[in-house]
Each structure stands twice: as C-alpha cells, then as structure tokens.
C-alpha cells in the first residue's frame, strides 16, 4: 500500500472520476479501479476501501444504477451505469472542475510571477 509516488485525491474528486469512468458504459467495481489507474497512467491507485463506499453512496444518491451481469471471466459481477441524474451531474461537475482548475492555475501562476 505504498503511496510514495502517488498522491491523495482531493475530497469529492473520486466521485467525479467514478462518474467519468462509468459514463463510458456499464462497468464493475474492479474494472473501475483498473480503468482509473490506466487512464491516470498509473498515477492514481484507488483503494477498495474508498472505492466501494463511494460506489454505494452514488448508487444511494441515484446517480448510478447497478445490475448483476455476467462478467468477461464468466462470473456474476455488479455492473454500474449512469442514470440521467448521474449524467447531468457529471456534466456540471466536470464544468465546475475545469473552471476550478483554471482559476487555481491562474492564481498559482500569478503568484509565481510575483515572487
């Protein structure tokens, strides 16, 4: 569980990442963890301990819905997909996120120049 070359996700970011990954199509929890790891070029490793509570929370908030389907290995797995609410939420959250990062970047850059 070494996290030396990784960093902690800011609060709420995991939910956004999950929504983004699930938006690509029905997917089970293990695949979500792998996909985040791949897409971040191994920079992010999501712990099961935070992934599953987050999935269940999003399901409880009706942003995700889940169905049991046969997985690629032939075993039954719980597949998550976005609901309409989830899709809308992903859109607004993504916009919020990019605005936030733009603003933060702007300020950080400005500060550096002022040093």
């Amino acid at each position, binding site marked *: *569980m070494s996290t030396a070359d990784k960093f902690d996700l800011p609060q709420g970011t995991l939910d956004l990442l999950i929504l983004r990954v699930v938006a690509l199509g029905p997917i*089970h*929890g*293990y695949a979500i*963890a792998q996909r985040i790891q791949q897409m971040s070029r191994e920079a992010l490793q999501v*712990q*099961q*301990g935070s992934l*599953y*509570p*987050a*999935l*269940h*929370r999003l399901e*409880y908030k009706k942003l995700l819905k889940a169905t*049991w389907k046969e*997985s690629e*290995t032939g*075993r*039954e*797995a*719980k597949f998550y997909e976005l609901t309409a609410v989830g899709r809308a939420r992903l859109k607004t959250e993504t916009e919020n996120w990019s605005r936030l990062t733009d603003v933060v970047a702007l300020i950080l850059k400005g500060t550096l120049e002022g040093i």
Partner: protein
Amino acid sequence: MSWLGRLFARKRLENDLEKELRFHFESQVEEKMRSGIPQSEARRLTRLEFGDIDQIKEDCRGSRGTLWLEYLVQDIWFGLRQLRKSPGFTSIALLSLALGIGANTAIFTLVNAILLRPLPVQNPSELVLFGDGRAQGLTFSVPDGKWQLFSYSFFHDFRRLATSYAGIAAVNSTQFASKASIAGSAYQTTHVDFVSGSYFPVLGVPAFLGRTILESDDNAPGAGPVAVASYGWFQRHCNGDPSALGKTIRIQSHDYTLIGVARPGFSGVTVAQSTDLWIPLSMETEMSPGQNGLANKFYQSLQLIGRLKPDVKPAQASSETNLLFKQIMRDYLGPQPSQKHIEDIAHAGVELTPGSRGISPLRASFSLPLKILMTIVALVLLIACANIANMLLARGVARTREVAVRMALGASRGRVVFQLLIESALLSVSGAVAGLALAWKASILLLQMATPGPAPVPLNLTPDLPVLAFTLGLTVLTALLFGCLPALRATGIEFTPALKDGRGSSSVSARGALARSLIVGQIALSVLLLAVAGLFVRSLIHLTGIDTGFDKHNVLVFSLDSSTANLPHHSPDEIRSVHLQEQIESRVQAIPGVQSDSFAFFTFNQGSWSDLVLFQGVPRTPENADPVFFNNVGNGFFSTMGIPLLAGRTFTAQDTQNSPKVAVINESMARRFFPNGSAVGRRFAVGETPDHPGEIEVIGVVKDAKYNALDEGSLQAAYFPCTQNVGFYGSFAVRYASGANRREIIARVRNSIAEINPNILVDGVTGLDDQVNQSIATQSLIARLTSFFGFIAVFLACIGIYGLLSYSVARRTSELGIRLALGAQSRMLLWQVLRESLLLLIIGLAIGIPIALSSTRILKSLLYELSPLDPAAITTAVAAVVVMTLAAAWLPARSATKINPIQALRAE
C-alpha cells in the same frame, strides 16, 4: 428503494456486498496469478492490498444511509437479549417503572381533566367568569364582598349597559336533575341547564342538528318551551335519529319541543357535570313554580360568563364591570336604602376570572390535593429512577469486561453509550406502556373513590393528546435520568485493568460514591413521603374520631324523587305532600325490624339552607349574629337520627299546619342566644329583619349534630316540622334494629312506598354511616394514596440498600474470609458491614428530616386539627425508615458472617 425498503432488503444487500467484494478480490488474485505469482502468494498479497475487509463493508453500509436504523434494530435486539438474561433486574425495574409512570399518568389524567383542559368552545381564552365559579345555589342577600351569583334582572340590565363584552351568557348555577319523558315514553332522570338565549352564540357552540336556543326563546317569561339536547343524550335516548327533532319532552308536567342537538363533545360549561338538555331561562318559573325567579331583582342564582371584545384588556373589563355592578345594585335597592345596604354595596365587587376552563367546583376542592399527589408521585418516580440507575450501575460493573471488549474491538464510546441508552429506553418504554394501561383504569378508580356516589362523575378520562404527550415526555425523561449516568460511567473505563481483571476494580470506588449518594437521596425522599403520609393518616384519624352528634349506625337513607307524582306546589293543597310523607312514615314504621323513620330536608352532607334569626327580646350580638342552619323534619327525625333531646319536647302529631309555629333548636343556638337561661318557650323569626317577629316558638333543645361536614365548627341549627314548612322532602331515613336483615328492610320499604304512590321513585339507598364516610372520601383517598406511595418509596430504597450491600459483601468475600480466618469475630464483621449502611441512613435522615419539616407546611389547609409538624407523624415516618433500612441492611450483613473462610479463599 426507500430507506425502509433497504432495511427490509438488508439480507440481500449484505449478500450482494459480500459477492461484489469477493468478485473484486478474486479478479485481483487472478490478475496477479496471470503475471506469474503462485496462487497462495497472490491471495496473501491481495489480502494485504485490500486491508480490513470488514471495515470496507461497514463503510459501504454507512453510505447506504440506513446504518443508524440498522444499529437501532441491532441494539434493540441486543438490548432485549440482555434484559432477558437478567429477569430479576428486568422485572423489578419494569414493575417500579410501570408503577411510577402509571401513577404519574393517572394523577396527571385527573389534573388535566379537572385543572387544565379548556372548554370545547370557540376561542376559550376570551371567556371570563364573573366570580370564581365556586358558588352554587340561590341567595337573596344584598351583595357584600366578592359576588358570585346574579339575578336574571341583573343579567339583562348589565348586558344592556356593558361595552367591554362581545356577549354575555347566563346559566343557572345549580343543575336541575329531573325526570323527563320523550314523547310519552318512561320517565328517566335528566340533567337540565337553564341558559340565556345568548348562551350558545356567546360560547360559539353550533347545533349539530336543528338549531340552538335563540334570544327569541328567552325574551319573555314562558316564551321558549324548547329544549336543546346534548349529543350524548341524543344518542342514548333517540339513537341519533334526526326525526326525533320536534318531539315533545315532558318535564314536571310541562312540555318542551326538542329543537336541536348541540355539537358533539360539548356538555355544558361546568367541569365534571354533564348536561342532557338546555332549556331557556325564560322557562325557569315553570320548573320552580311559585318562585318569582325571573322578576325578583334579588333572586340571585345565575352564573355569568362573558366573552371579551378582542381589543379589551381584562383590567378594563373588570373596572367597567364593577362600576356597572354597583350602579345597578344601588338602583335595585330603591330610593331609600338602609345605611347597612349602602355599606354592603360599597364593599361588594365582581372578580373576573379566566373562563377558558369553564366553571368547576371540583377545581377548588381538588386543586391542592391533586398538586400534592402530583408532587408525591413525581418523587416516587424519581426514587424508582434512582433505584434503576443504581441497579444499572451494578450491572455496568458486571459488564465492564463486555464493554471493554466491545470498545477494544473498535466500537466507539458513543456507540456503546447509545446501546446502553437503548436498553434504558426499552425498559422505560415497556414500563410506560404498562403504566399507561394501569393509569387509565386507575384514574377512573381514583375519581370514583374521591367522589363516591350513586352515579359516576361525568369526567372524560380517556387518555387524550396532552396525557399521551405527558407520558411520552416522562418516559424519555426517566430513561435519560436513570440511563445516562450508568452508561457514561460504564464506558468511561480504563481498558487495560478492566480487561486484565475482568471485575472492574478500577471503577468500583467511583461507582460506590455515586450509588451511595443515590441511596442517601432515596432515604431522604422516603422520610419526606412517609411524613406526609403520616400527617394525612393522623388527620384522617382525627376526622373519623369526630362525634357526629347523631348515631350513624343502623340507619338507611332513601332518596326519593317526586317529580312525576304531580304533587301540588305553592297552593293550599300542598299539604297533601306532607300527608303523603306521613302515610309512608306510618306504613314503614309497621315493618318488622324498623324502629323509627322520618322524612327530612337533609340528613347529613346533603346541602344546606341558612339565614339569620331574631329572637324577641334578645339584641343581636357578635355571638349570635352567625347564620342559623335550618332543616325541615318529620316527627320521628330525632329518634331516627339518634339525636338526644336535652330540654322540652320534639314534634308530635299536634304540631299541624294550623297550630302555632314551633321549632326545635340545637344546644349551640340555645347557648349563644340564652347563655344563662332556658331557650324553651322563647320566640324567634327567620330573617335579618323578619316580617312576623317572634312567630316561631322554641319547644325543645337537642344536642348538636353535624350538619354538612365532619370538620365544621359548632353550628347553630333549628329544626322545623314538615307540616309547617310544607313540601315533599326527598330524604327518608329509616332506623332498624341492629341484627335486622337490611336487604329485606330495603325491599319492604320500596314496596311500601310503591303501594302508597307508584309515582314516587326511589333514586337510591345508602347507609347513614356510608354517607358520613363519603363526606371525607377525598381525605381518606389522599391518606391511603400517600401511605401507599410512601411505602413504595421506602420499599424501593430498601431494595437499593439491599442491592448495594449484597454486592459489596459479594465483592469482599475473600477479604471477609481472610478476616474470619485470622480470627475476626462474626459480630465485628456484622458491624463493619452494617456501619456502611448506618452512615448512609444517618446522612439520609439528616437531609430528609429538615426537608420534611420545612415542606409539610403547605399541607396545613388539608389537615384537620393537626400541626403540619405533628411530632407523632414525623417520628413514625423516621422510625419506619430506620427499621426498614436496617432490615434491608441486616440480610446481606448477616450473610457476610456466614462466609466459609476456606471457600472464600479458594474462590479467589
């Protein structure tokens, strides 16, 4: 899925969660194996990466949003299991809670019904009562002091002039109980209120059916021969059939048309008095024939209720009311009032009191007793709480290990406290449910015991919203009260020693201090409660020891109703009523076993009639200026009641309607008017300034007898023969030989009356002794209740002490065993254990006795000839507490001396 659905789908959700995580785990293992790691190593690594799988599950459950509910359900099941595991503790706790909460709810039910509940009318808070609503009856006096009863004329004159009120309603202060017949059916007792035409509109009570009484029914004497029924009466007698409207109701040979039914729930403005029919005041003369009730300006028998205008302050209304009151009264006295009357009016006034809760004679007499009882049951509940807290503390120590294990396994302190509180809540909720059931029955029983009589007092005691809210609040409060400290104490432990020792030695001393102070409190409160009980019991003993002046044994009192017998009223023919009585008297006299019998206006505690008298040749002095209480009696009255004659003679057949007027007076009256001589042969008349001075001759003097209450002082009394104050008097007293068959005599008396006139109905029969007991029913109920609760309190305190000492002896088994083995004498050990409880007892007494001495003062008005500091009552209370505490301490102390040293040492 709703959270409730999730809760019930819990099993499936748990399986799904397990399956989902298992899938993840297996997939991860397979991936590792694909990269060449052997299976066992792959599993080990994955398990490491996963971390605490149970923690993940718990977090997932947490994000489901139903965790709190799951905890709750778990805790309730766990709590129930825990409680079932210790049936002794559970049953004692439940019993004391059921009793405590039940007693509080029962008394509160009465408090709510008698003292708190508002009238079911529109905006009751706008209503004001003229006077405090305690006076009932009829008075002709010129007002002096705070005035309560008003005449019909006053009502009309006042209403015309007053500007502070949106309306004023009048109702007769005494309810008429009369026989009524609907459309020719059998006569049944009916309670009638005479009301003004403004009554229903002012109160804002609409008709359920038909219409209510209107001003036009009440604008001239005899104008409104109509009746409005209460919803209850309508259901009982007309089966709720709307076609009953328009039917004729016959009351005292007058016919009234049923015009409407009042809204359900409304049964008049007097608490604990239920009205069947309302009839306009304009018809009052028909019900009280011969009395000029509507025209006489001083025929004062009405109670007035006003509805203030929204913008008028009570103080404003009060000053206007008093001004008008005096003005109208001065007017009534005519152009040349006497100096005394002018002074009286100057002193007179009307006190406006809040009318939202209606008129309640019960409120005045039960207010203080109910408040005292409420305090007492609250204290009992407090003691019960202390006791349960103490038992929980002991259990907490016994469960130290369990709690320590749970907390070591990761349960948060809050979670454990919550679980322990749930156990307390389970106890108090079950106690409350049992208590509520108990209270419902108990409050009805209490009311019956407090107000005994043939018919139950009509007071709705069904638990309503305020009562349920009270009980719920009480339940939560008690659970917190007895649950909080033990729960916090149980979880505030240090882990390591608790786990090592398993017997929680580290928290023992702290627990001990808390437990001890709870017991000191219990002892102190027990002393207070027993002292109160002792005072009430001693007061009751004084009351029952009072010489009534008559012989209450072997006398039956029949109450007779003549309203359907069509007897003449206020006509020369009225003497027929007296002849009818004499006929009954002589027929009953002939029944074997009957010694004597007599009709009377009153026997004892049946009401009163009083006025001033003036003797010829005796000036009015402060000694004789008190009113004299009158009674109209048959010739056999004094022998039937067993009132001894001291001088002169009693009434005989020679005292007739046309013979000179005579009276028998009592000793007090004779002594006050003639301190030095005989009263026999002297002449007097009734009234402040009698029209026919000296018209009545005193023919005899009898011993004093109680008139209306056991605790009344020595009243002046005069008895007149029925023949000279004609009328039919409802009380018929029969003295029978001791040993005669009472039931047979009752049956034969009923038969004799029916044979003479079948329309004279027997309403009820009681023994004169029961009548005396009923007059002190409230006092005896209070004495019984306070004793009961006092002993419950001491008993609970004893359980507490017994528990504490047994526990401490059990803990010290090895220490005591060693002492015994080293040669300590068992008497020494006994003393050592007893010493602890003696100390608690002494501190408890030191706190309890001063509290008792300083707080019993508020009981003063309820005690008969007894100081609230009565040494006997307080000494008895202290002695009872001492004896019971020592007994409770003795048992565990003795078992300490019976310890077998060998076993004690081995046990360690």
